């Protein structure tokens, strides 16, 4: 049995007991780089993806979207100039975010421009875009600019020589970690409702889809029992990542499993950056001390 007081203490220590900010700072940089790649990828197709006469016509978009979902496009004239302005602002804020300069402001602007870009044409977006928006929202509340940033050198370090700014309440990072668990567990849950996942043949159908296949897999892999082992293995990995990653002893091996899972998905499926966003979020489970040691050994 647990008392209310113990429960409250556990809650407080989980969400508010200060931890080193190295992990969330590393996440800010890696996540920012993936976001930057994402927007640079879109540059040659801006007219098609976001333009007023692109895949989603601006007038109809404005009528349909109304003000239900936030987008700066709703408040700007329907021209390519607006598209370039918002994209330019997004890239600039991302560069600031990665460098850690005026981090809280740059993360907020990144989130606003990211929402604007995604909401302008959700039909071309996928799970990766959803992960990016949600994580960017939580990142607003995290102290990600307190380490590995220009903010640290310019503002925090001179003001606090004792470096107490490196220890912060991790509640926003905890929300991101919980969100990652929810993604894995929900994904596994919804898949278990499908016949092909239960009988272990789902991977065969995924690799036969012309729209989503990137590389073909060896034919032997698509035969029993290998296809079943891989399909069920992926479900098992998702379950383990959702639950087991919270257990200290399993954490590092499961991060490696997660990277393996997402690199395999990246090899097989032509799904835009989903795996890279997920791998960036998995970094949030790396021990801060380990992050610090790794970064110190490199620089």
């Amino acid at each position, binding site marked *: 049995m647990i008392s209310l007081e113990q429960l409250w203490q556990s809650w407080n220590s989980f*969400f508010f007991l200060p931890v080193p900010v190295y992990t969330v700072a590393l996440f800010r940089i890696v996540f920012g780089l993936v976001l930057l790649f994402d927007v640079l990828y*879109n540059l*040659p*197709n801006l007219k*098609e*993806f976001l333009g007023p*006469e*692109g*895949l*989603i*016509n601006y007038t*109809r978009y404005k009528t349909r979207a109304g*003000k*239900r*979902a*936030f987008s700066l496009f709703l408040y700007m004239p329907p021209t390519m100039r607006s598209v370039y302005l918002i994209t330019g602002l997004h890239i600039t804020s991302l560069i600031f975010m990665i460098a850690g300069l005026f981090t809280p402001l740059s993360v907020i602007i990144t989130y606003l421009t990211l*929402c604007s870009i*995604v*909401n302008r044409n959700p*039909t*071309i977006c996928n*799970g990766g875009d*959803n*992960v990016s*928006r*949600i994580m960017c*929202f939580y990142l607003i509340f995290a102290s990600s600019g307190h380490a590995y940033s220009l903010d640290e050198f310019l503002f925090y370090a001179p003001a606090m020589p004792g470096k107490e700014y490196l220890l912060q309440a991790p*509640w926003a990072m905890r*929300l991101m970690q*919980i*969100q990652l668990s*929810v*993604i894995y567990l*929900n*994904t596994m849950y*919804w*898949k278990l*409702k*499908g*016949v*092909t*996942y239960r009988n272990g*043949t*789902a991977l*065969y*159908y*995924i690799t*036969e*889809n*012309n*729209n*989503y*296949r*990137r590389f073909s897999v060896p034919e032997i892999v*698509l035969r029993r029992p290998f*296809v079943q082992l891989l399909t069920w293995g992926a479900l098992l990995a998702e379950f383990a990542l959702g639950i087991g990653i919270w257990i200290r002893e399993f954490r590092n091996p499961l991060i490696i499993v997660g990277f393996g899972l997402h690199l395999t998905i990246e090899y097989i499926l*032509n*799904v*835009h950056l*989903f795996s890279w966003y997920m791998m960036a979020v998995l970094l949030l489970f790396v021990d801060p001390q380990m992050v610090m040691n790794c970064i110190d050994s490199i620089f």
Partner: protein
Amino acid sequence: MDIIAELTRIMTNIFILVMLFWMVFWDSELNNPVKKYWMPKMKPVFLWLGLTAEWKMFSPDPFLYNSWPILKIFLQDGGFFLWEPTQGTQLNFIQKIRYKKSHKFYHEVGKANASFYTKVDFITYILHKHGLNDQCAKVEVYRVHQNIRPFDKQSDAGTPRICKQLVYTYNPPKQSVL
């Protein structure tokens, strides 16, 4: 100062609780009473913030078919223009990466339950892209559908039949005569 700190602490705790509640119940079963009652009340705020993601990728089953749209654009002079996306199998590695978002869109248009708006937007885009706005008399959207060979029948000879189905007819708005 203490009051501000205490208020901040209370607000942060409330924020965490709300986010956890949303995270857990938003992507739950439709018949879940909490989802049925609370989620519609909370949805407008979370939709505005862009936090209404569901995690149902490739579920409950992956696509058991390949599908894509074909547009048959009838011109006023009696001729027609046929638009069809390049098949994924005909794209090289670079093209697959370059056009993956466009192909995602084509895939959405080719779905049986694709929305009316998506189809109209796409028709307008294609007409504009090919400079056919003024010449268009009618557009027919076909959904082309080819089942993936069932797992247990991989070794069967021949390719699965390709079915073509008219899913939408677009008549451009009549232009006023000046």
